[in-house]
């Protein structure tokens, strides 16, 4: 096991720069998830750690060794690919044993490690099958088995669950997390699915267009998103954003351009009239008699909660209530954002205003 350090790493394909100076520190044994929309450079960054792409600038360290010029096989990392990349002409056992056979490891050791990995992943009965004869989830497990057998310093996962159906994905999510708790191997995991990131990570790195937008523990990102991008990306359904101005004073408030005055706990000094974006998560609305009056547009009950799209002025807001809502579209309800849980962002830069 080892720590991983990424220092001011850049990547250009020809003249197009896709990673613009990224700094990430990953501690020994940590489970870090790189998350961001498709095309933001997550895979590229991961492949640079693996050594499958060369590094255009900056430094990658694994343990205390700079690996920029170390060939992939000497970096002591194992990677699980999105399409699993199982060798189709080898049985499950041979797939898992391949790296050790290449190293001319003694046969008993190979067998022992393969059967141990197979035991961890519940693959004992499938060892003689070929990849074609496996289901998606089983292939996924074999790919992980191949990584486990290596007993590497670092596990790298590139969207390992995106080829699975929704139910299996939830199950594998738990399995991977359990696996990590058991092996405690430093893990870098790439996904575009923020729910995966929230549920699995020790630390989330949110990437966007080749830069790191924010880095931190899942709930830290949820509670204090550093900017509009992270605020919108983390959480499902997404945070509501309302444009408007701060009204400072004894009882500060937020006046929306689209109509309506929203509650604020505090306003920074001298911020009166400042154009901002007011952010409130759907789950942070309450039904309250003294709330803002809103016109119901859509009601979607899911049983455990009710999702309501409502309009304040001309602004549509998504709200989630624990209560069951009987209101019909067109009717008026009174909703109150919890002023302790609202977020205010600079309208120009998108940065969080404390």
């Amino acid at each position, binding site marked *: 096991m080892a720590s991983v350090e990424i220092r001011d790493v850049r990547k250009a394909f020809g003249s197009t720069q896709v990673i613009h100076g990224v700094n990430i520190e990953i501690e020994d044994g940590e489970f870090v998830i790189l998350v961001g929309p498709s095309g933001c450079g997550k895979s590229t960054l991961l492949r640079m750690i*693996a*050594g*499958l792409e060369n590094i255009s600038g900056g430094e990658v360290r694994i343990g205390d060794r700079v690996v920029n010029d170390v060939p*992939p*096989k000497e970096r002591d*990392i*194992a*990677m699980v*690919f999105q*399409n699993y*990349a199982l*060798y*189709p*002409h*080898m049985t499950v056992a041979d797939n898992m044993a*391949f*790296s050790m056979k*290449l*190293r001319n490891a003694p046969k008993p050791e190979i067998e022992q490690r393969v059967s141990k990995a197979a035991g961890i992943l519940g693959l004992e009965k499938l060892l003689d099958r*070929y*990849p*074609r*004869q*496996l*289901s998606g989830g089983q292939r996924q497990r074999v790919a992980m088995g*191949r990584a486990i057998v*290596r007993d590497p310093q670092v596990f790298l996962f590139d969207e390992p669950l995106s080829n699975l159906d929704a139910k299996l994905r939830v199950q594998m999510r738990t399995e991977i997390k359990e696996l990590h708790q058991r092996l405690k191997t430093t893990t870098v995991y790439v996904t575009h699915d923020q729910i995966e990131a929230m549920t699995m990570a020790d630390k989330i790195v949110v990437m966007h267009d080749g830069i790191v937008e924010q880095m931190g523990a899942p709930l830290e990102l949820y509670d204090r998103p550093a900017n509009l991008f992270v605020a919108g990306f983390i959480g499902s359904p997404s945070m509501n954003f309302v444009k408007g101005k701060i009204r400072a004073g004894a009882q500060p408030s937020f006046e929306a351009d689209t109509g309506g005055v929203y509650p604020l706990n505090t306003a920074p000094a001298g911020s009166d009239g400042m154009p901002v974006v007011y952010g409130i998560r759907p789950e942070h609305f309450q039904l309250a008699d003294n709330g803002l009056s809103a016109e119901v547009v859509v009601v979607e009950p899911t049983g455990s909660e009710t999702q309501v799209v409502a309009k304040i002025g001309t602004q549509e807001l998504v709200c989630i209530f624990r209560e069951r809502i009987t209101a019909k579209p067109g009717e008026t309800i009174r909703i109150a954002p919890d002023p302790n849980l609202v977020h205010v962002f600079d309208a120009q830069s998108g940065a969080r205003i404390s």
Partner: protein
Amino acid sequence: MSDSVAGRVPAPAVRHPTWWDRLRINRNWLGFWFMAPAAAILILFLAFPLGKGVWLSFTDAKIGRAGSFIGLENYEWLGLPWWRDSDGVFWLSVFNTLVYTIVASIVKFAVGLYLAILLNQNLPFKAAIRSIVLIPFVVPTVLSAIAFWWIFDSQFSIISWSLRHLGIIDYNINFLGDPNNARASLIFANIWRGVPFIAITLLAGLQTVSPSLYEAATLDGASKWQNFRFVTFPLLTPIIAVVMTFSVLFTFTDFQLIWAMTRGGPVNSTHLMATLSYQRAILAGNLGEGAAIATAMVPFLLFAIMVSWFGLQSRKWQQGGEDS
């Protein structure tokens, strides 16, 4: 009237299917009907000439004379190699054919595979190079044979000329006049023509291998050679089996190139079974004898097909998933 009427249908209304009905609508027979046109064409254009050829080999037919059945006499004339009075020219042609096929196929495979791997790399002008590689395949055989004829000409050969000017030799090489030189020259020409087919087919096969397999193998610690040995080659074996079967069959039955360049000479030293058969049947007019030589090719071809049939049987890893 939506309630069930089962059991109330008067018995005579159910007509038992006749054998003709079965022929018309039974699933298995339906398959036969769909196959019938193709089968008819195959019988007409493949099986019939083949059967006719085999039949001719049992007669003493000559051009312009129908001939009569003479049993195995034509084959007795050919004899077996250890018979004192066997047909030496025929057995020389068998030897030539085997040498020609084996040497040319092995070299074509090696060069073709090498080219395919080369073309699969990220080369500059990749598309252009790929089309250039195809040229020998596109040029009509006779045309390329004539070109080779000049290249191997005893007086004007560009090879002799170049080597002479480089000071490596001081005489013209007698490419097509010396038996072994002639064989080598023909094999070379055949390789030149056959390599593109193999290279392009194997290239197509290479391109179906997912790059992430190489990446996975590289991370597993495989060198370039081990990548080839343990990933590329095993994944390529099915397509190698197909392409080499075709290559062997085409080389074994080659006619055009030989006929255009040497006509089997000098002194029969480059006759293949195909050219000898043509010479005896058409030029000398002994249809029965020529047919016997041609028929003698069949066991060899069957053998090659059997080898590839068993080689081609889809490997276990190619078969899909019967989940238990």
